[in-house]
């Protein structure tokens, strides 16, 4: 092997580790150079969405299922943390764990019957769940603050040291997001991850390889819901305010669009999809008013022309190239 080949081989072998390293360096340094609070608020939102989209991607992209109700679980996390800390005086950190646990229970209750459904029916069932939760948030004024929202959620803290500025929150949110991304990378390279990929590919074949498909579906659904709940809690403590508008069915559709744009079955694509669809409206004004239409259009176009999503489509292309190159060399 000559030097060039060795470097390329090293890069290929350690691509995940190196990407994590490069990304964490970038995230550590960039707010120091570019500490505009508005921008930081936006990137914090991207970090939080990344966690939701990652979970949803494991469910949709890897396991081949569909959920149009993830905003509801995101809402349960956010409102759960808000209610527990403000109304019941629970400390924020344990509240996050409690809420995640409770949301996981809800996911089991919803998931065990709903995951017997396939395709459109599953989409409808999850969509219905989202509508129910949204209605509860709007109607149950005393607990949720109704349509005007729930304000005064305390910041997270370690003792007296509070995560009260966008800069501090930047490090908190992105640490959480990177940890989740790494867990996701671990998962997809494991026996469980292969079981999910098999499940998405062909259920009969997956069962014939020893995968308990029904159980696997419920497990990955609960995992993805827990991620959504954690992200929701983080959202509540980051912005200090939650209102039902963030958690409607269009938010669920946005999450799915992020998964698809980023790439079905791509852990890194989750980050990319969340970032792209959160940034774009900031640059292009038309986006703001016609957001739902444009997101729908993007969804349809990507599905038509790059059915695996942007990132996964491009990665697959480069993998074929790489394999050809290796074969030529061999």
């Amino acid at each position, binding site marked *: 092997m000559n030097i060039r080949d060795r470097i390329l081989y090293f890069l290929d072998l350690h691509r995940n580790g190196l990407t994590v390293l490069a990304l964490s360096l970038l995230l550590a340094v960039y707010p120091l150079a570019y500490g505009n609070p508005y921008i930081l608020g936006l990137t914090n939102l991207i970090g939080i969405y990344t966690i939701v989209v990652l979970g949803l991607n494991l469910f949709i992209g890897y396991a081949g299922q569909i959920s149009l109700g993830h905003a509801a679980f995101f809402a349960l996390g956010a409102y759960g943390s808000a209610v527990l800390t403000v109304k019941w005086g629970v400390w924020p950190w344990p509240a996050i764990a409690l809420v995640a646990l409770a949301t996981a229970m809800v996911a089991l209750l919803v998931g065990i019957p709903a995951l017997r459904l396939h395709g459109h029916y599953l989409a409808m069932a999850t969509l219905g769940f989202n509508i129910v939760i949204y209605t509860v948030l709007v109607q149950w004024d005393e607990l949720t603050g109704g349509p005007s929202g729930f304000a005064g959620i305390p910041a997270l803290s370690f003792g007296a040291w509070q995560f009260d500025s966008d800069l501090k929150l930047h490090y908190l949110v992105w640490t959480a997001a990177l940890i989740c991304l790494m867990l996701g990378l671990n998962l997809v390279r494991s026996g469980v991850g292969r079981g999910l990929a098999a499940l998405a590919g062909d259920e009969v*074949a997956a069962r014939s390889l020893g995968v308990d498909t029904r159980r696997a579906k419920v497990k990955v659904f609960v995992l993805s819901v827990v991620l959504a709940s954690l992200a929701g809690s983080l959202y509540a403590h980051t912005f200090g305010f939650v209102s039902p508008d963030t958690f409607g069915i269009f938010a669920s559709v946005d999450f799915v669009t992020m998964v698809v744009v980023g790439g079905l079955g791509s852990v890194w694509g989750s980050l990319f999809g969340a970032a792209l669809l959160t940034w774009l409206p900031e640059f292009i004004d038309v986006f703001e008013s016609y957001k739902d239409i444009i997101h729908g259009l993007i969804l349809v176009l990507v599905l038509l022309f790059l059915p695996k999503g942007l990132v996964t489509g491009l990665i697959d292309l480069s993998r074929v190239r790489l394999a050809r190159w290796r074969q030529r060399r061999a």
Partner: protein
Amino acid sequence: MLDVISVCRNFGGLPALSDVSFSLQRGRVTALIGPNGAGKTTMINCITGVDIPDAGRVDFAGEDITGLPAYRVARLGISRTFQNLKLFPRLSVIDNVLCGLTVQGGQSMLGALLRPPRVRNRERRLRLRAMAALDRFGLTELADWPVDVLAYGDRKRVELARAVVSEPRLILLDEPVAGLNHEETATVAKEIRALRAQGYTLLLVEHDMDLVMRVSDHVVVLDGGRCIAGGTPDEVRRNPLVLEAYLGRTGALA
């Protein structure tokens, strides 16, 4: 090893299998043959838990496995290939073969997420096993290719590698040479014999008589959902009932 005892299966009143019985001997290659619609694939599905017999039972290594869900049957050590390839198109060749080791990779979600050294080492060992399986079927060069760009013959071999990699106690091959050319068929025949030599037990469902006669120890003939004959390839070849099923009442085999 595997005993099929009086299995019946009806589809909406039409009998696909009626009162079928046969046994597989450990370390032998048994072929299940019969004209189209004889019930061969239904039989395989009933053994592997994809389908459930209406009556009768299937015993594997002395254990009643009738009606067990497919994933439990697979975990007992029965692996299979499919008539119309069921590979996972999004995954590379090596990952497809690794899927044959899904269960051996552990089922703990927490272990998978945190990837402690124990899990990491296990994954490394599984990868080596998958590489060995690729090597055995001459697929090493193609390890990183996505399967959906491979030639048909190569994809058939990937599925074979996936079925073998877990070192199952019984391998069911559903038409392993359908759609392959002469050369590729010869390679598969060699591979089947090599598996037998290693002590594997195989059930082969096949249309290619030439292959069946060359590699099997025992042949079971189905026709119209009934088991009409069984014996060594030579016995079956001479059996008038078999000739009739294949060639019609007036036919004769030269």
